[in-house]
């Protein structure tokens, strides 16, 4: 069965600093991997996704993520965060036609 772990429940960074949100997945093969963001009182929006090819994928608003098969990870990064990036970030995994499974989410707070 597939699963995904986001070890950091909450991350605080200063505006302009770099960011990494961690995600580890569990699945025997390479699954489809996603990062979604949820702003307050809104639904989720996809930032980026990966299945194959270049392990570094670019997403919206300057976000990127790097897939590592050896580490079973799919960490999200941003070079310089803005206060508007404050939100909840979810890593998600999908293996074949199974359901999309979300991690517990990481609350990102960007301080001025």
């Amino acid at each position, binding site marked *: 069965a597939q699963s995904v772990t986001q070890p950091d429940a909450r991350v605080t960074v200063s505006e302009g600093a770099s960011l990494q949100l961690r995600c580890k997945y569990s699945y025997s093969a390479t699954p489809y991997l996603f990062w979604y963001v949820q702003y307050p009182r809104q639904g989720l929006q996809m930032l980026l996704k990966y299945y194959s090819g270049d392990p570094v994928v670019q997403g919206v608003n300057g976000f990127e993520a790097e897939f590592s098969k050896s580490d079973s990870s799919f960490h999200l990064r941003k070079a310089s965060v803005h206060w508007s990036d404050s939100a909840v970030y979810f890593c998600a995994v999908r293996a074949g*036609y199974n359901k999309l499974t979300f991690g517990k989410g990481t609350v990102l707070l960007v301080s001025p």
Partner: protein
Amino acid sequence: ETAVFQTPNYHVTQVGNEVSFNCKQTLGHDTMYWYKQDSKKLLKIMFSYNNKQLIVNETVPRRFSPQSSDKAHLNLRIKSVEPEDSAVYLCASSRLGPQNTLYFGAGTRLSVL
């Protein structure tokens, strides 16, 4: 731009009442979903429909029942609400296929008194 519409935004009710939530998507997708998000932001899929056919039915209490009139609509009915049903219910849609993105509505927040 919103393309998955959920109504109502909020609903407050008492234990034992019946509630219904509506969801409509204008993206032309063939697959729709209901997710439950609890107060800790945990997301769990409840149901998934493809072309009006139920394809995913997680272990949810029998008082929950999805209703699909066509592939653009997926409603959720809760027959007799319980306090633990208080949550945000998120509707989503996508094309069928594991690589496809899910598009979410803004959610319906249910409070059971």
